[in-house]
Every structure is written in structure tokens, then in C-alpha cells.
């Protein structure tokens, strides 16, 4: 057992089957395609956990059901569940989710990220930090943090 990990033995779950998006045969290639839960999930499911070689999907940190999308209002809320309730990696995971969605969704989108109610010991503090864009902008100018985020995001671009 490796010492020093926040959660040394996480439960690993099976990945959900990848669905192929069905395209109607008379699809107009110029039509605006609306963004749905599945698309948002596909953007973030392969993000790697900061301390384990598993994806956020495999650790059930995120699931499709915990994504709320209102394409008409250009709004997404992702609720994630840290593997342990005192997880100090929660802000890094939240930062990864935010960065991936900023890079993947159209700029008109407003994104809220939060930890699932009752799953983290400092829930309010983590949520406040993740939704303060000034703190997020400053964090992403920190080379060490940015490296960490990019490492977690690398698998999701494969």
C-alpha cells in the first residue's frame, strides 16, 4: 500500500458503455446542435483523478445524472462526489472540470461546479472557491497548478 495518499484504496467502478450519437438521416449540417447531458458527460468522463490512474467516471466522482444542462439558457451545472469527505483534492478536481468545460463548451455557456451536498467536510468553502472566477483565473496562472490540471486532462483529449 502506498502511503501518503488521501484515499489509498478507492473503489473502482466499470465504465459506462459509450453510446454512439444517433444522427438523423436528413440532418442539416448547418443546423445548431443543442448540447445535452450526454455531450457534457463525454467531455469530462475521461478526466484522470489527481492521485489515481483512474478516470473520474471509474471512481464515480462524476456521473451523467449529476449533470444538469439547460441549452436554451446556456447553463451547465456539474455536481461531483469526492471519494472521501475530507479529500484535499476536491478543489483540483473541481478546477479540472471547470477548465475542461471552458475549453470544450461554447463561450456563451455559464458553468457552475459544486461538490454533492453532504459529501465534503468543507463543502461551502470548496464551492465558493470553485465559483470565484478571479481565484480560478489566478490559480490557472500558477504553473504548478496548471501542470497538475493539464496532466489530469490529458487522457480526455485522446
Amino acid at each position, binding site marked *: 500500500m502506498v502511503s501518503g495518499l488521501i484515499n489509498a484504496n478507492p473503489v473502482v467502478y466499470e465504465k459506462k458503455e459509450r453510446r454512439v450519437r444517433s444522427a438523423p438521416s436528413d440532418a442539416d449540417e448547418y443546423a445548431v446542435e443543442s448540447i445535452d447531458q450526454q455531450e457534457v458527460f463525454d467531455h469530462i468522463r475521461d478526466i484522470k483523478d489527481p492521485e489515481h490512474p483512474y478516470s473520474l467516471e471509474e471512481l464515480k466522482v462524476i456521473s451523467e445524472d449529476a449533470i444538469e444542462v439547460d441549452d436554451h439558457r446556456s447553463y451547465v451545472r456539474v455536481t461531483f462526489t469526492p471519494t472521501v469527505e475530507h479529500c484535499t483534492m476536491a478543489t483540483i478536481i473541481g478546477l479540472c472540470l471547470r477548465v475542461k468545460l471552458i475549453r470544450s463548451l461554447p463561450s456563451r455557456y455559464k458553468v457552475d461546479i459544486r461538490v454533492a451536498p453532504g459529501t465534503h467536510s468543507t463543502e461551502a468553502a470548496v464551492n465558493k472557491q470553485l*465559483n470565484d472566477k478571479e481565484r480560478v*483565473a489566478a490559480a490557472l*496562472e500558477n504553473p504548478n497548478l496548471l501542470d497538475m490540471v493539464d496532466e489530469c486532462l490529458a487522457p480526455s483529449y485522446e
Partner: protein
Amino acid sequence: MELEDGRFELREIQKLEGHTDRVWSLAWNPVTGVAGIPYVFASCSGDKTVRIWEQSPSTASWECKAVLEDTHTRTVRSCAWSPSGKLLATGSFDATTAIWENVGGDYECVSTLEGHENEVKSVSWNASGTLLATCARDKTVWIWEGEQGNEFDCVAVLQGHTQDVKMVQWHPTMDILFSCSYDNTIKVWADEGGDDDWACVQTLGEPNNCAGFLVSGHSSTVWALSFNHSGDKMVTCSDDLTLKIWGVDTISAQSANGYAPWRHLCTISGYHDRTIFSVHWSREDIIASGAADDAIRFFVENKDKDGLVDGPLYKLLMKEEKAHDMDVNSVQWSPGEKRLLASASDDGTIKIWELAPVSC
């Protein structure tokens, strides 16, 4: 002109492009736009630069006259002109504050103020231009005094906020400093002994019942504040989606040689539906607010309360729903005769607006 009787429209005069990242803040040069001097303002951005914009006297169109770069190494978060319009202070995430001087059309960095441990978030000059305040994520507020030859000495480091300080703003006439924070409070700082003996004299805090006295503060990060022209009212805006108006009794403030307690007058809620980042009170008492819902709203005092004693003290004058394609980070009224407003956004653009009466 009676504001509440007339109908207004917001005209987009020009959209200014040039910054390559989000525009965080902007500041009008206070001595421009009058006596034939063309309007000038500065903007600062996540692209680490500051841009100086000037209105061409011949075409009335706005042009970028200078790009101030290679000094700050990270986001430039805040900028402010000295009251004389000669110096521009810029605060950056690189933990420094730079002082720029306009020398024959060229802007030179004449001083760099170091001391904060991390991101500087706001800079503000006092009314006489002798003092500069800065604040940072390190939870402190610093007061600097300008000396001969663009030397700046730190005369006070103010500790009291429990989280990062988002904005500092001097009172428009008195040497009283206000700061607002991620800790949900607004603090008032005064030089009590008159000998750089700066201390926190009041905290406008979270909603609570303190000794039977209800304090109606903000319930989340306070992002910005602005004073009315005479300085007896202040508006604050917050992540709690409200604007709050605070008032002070000016007679007792003058007799007390400056400081008198501020109290909550009213809360404007139910308008913006995402974080309100910026608020600015015009000389004509129009409050402009810009928010993460991409909208700009205008509020005025409600002089016609329909006979209701408890009617709202302020009402919505008008709103511009899609003012920008992304979050509105800063709204600033121009000096001078015109009713111009500049807005800065995450979409990388700045817009110049004119609030004008609807022509019949």
C-alpha cells in the same frame, strides 16, 4: 432633466477590440472629456497588458493610443488614474503595483510597488492624490504615500479581513478608506490619530442579530463599491446577487472630523441572476451595475413610491440584457458633460454606451 419622468435608451456607440483575453477593469482619466480635452480611459486584461484609449476629436471614434506591456508578468486586474490624471496605477496578479506617467504621449513605468505576498486585486487614489491604497489575496490592505520623484513609501499595512480583499476605494472627499472582501464584509478604515495610525473603525458584516441590532450585510463575496457624488451614500454589489445601499450622516461625519457610522438603507434584489461584479454611481445618481449574467442594469432612487410608506427606495430604470457575449466585469461612467458608460467583459471587448433620452 427629470430622470424618472423621461424614457431612456442605451445606445451602443462603439465596440473596442484589441485585448486578447478577458478585460477585467477600466478607468476614465478624470481630467478628460472637459474643456475640449478628448476623452481618455485605460483598460486592463488577462493578456497582461494595459491599453490606453482616446476619442479622436475629428472622427469621434475611439482608438487605442498605447499598449503598456512587458512590465506586469501576469493578469493586470485593476487600474486607477490619480486625480490630476497624470499618473496611472495598475495592480497585477504578479503581486506588484506599477505607476505609469504620461510623458509626451508615451507611458513610462516610473515606479513599481512591491510588498504584497500574492495577487493585487485593486488600486485606488485618495481625493488629493497623495495616498494610494492596494489590496490582495494575502488579506491585507496597504496604504502608500507618494513622495518626491515618484517614490512611494508604505505607511500602513491593514489587517482585519479574513479572506482575500477584492476592492479598495477611498471616500470621494475624506481620507477614509473602504475595502470589500471574499469574507462577505466591507471594512471602513480611518487614520484616527492623524499620524498614520490607521485602524478599522467599522465592519459592515454578514446578516446577523448583534445585540438586538439587525445588521443587513451581504451573504457572499462583496466584489465592488461606489459612492454617490456627495459621499453620503455608498452602493456595494455581491455574489449574493444583491446591491446594497448604505448611508452616513454627513453632519456628524464632519463634526467628528471624518468618520461616522454607516448604516444599511436598502437592498436591491431580484434583478441580476448571476454574480454582480461591478457597480458605479453617476454624478446624476444613476447606479449602473454589470454582472456575470452578461447584463448591465441601471437603478435610480424611487421618488414616486405610489403612496406606499414601505415602497422600494430604488427602482430599475432600464436594463441591457445582452450587453456583452460573456460576463460584464466592469462598468464605469465617464467624467465630463456626456452621459457615457464604458463596460469591460470576459469576451475581450470594451463597449462605449450613451444613455440618452428617447427622442419623440
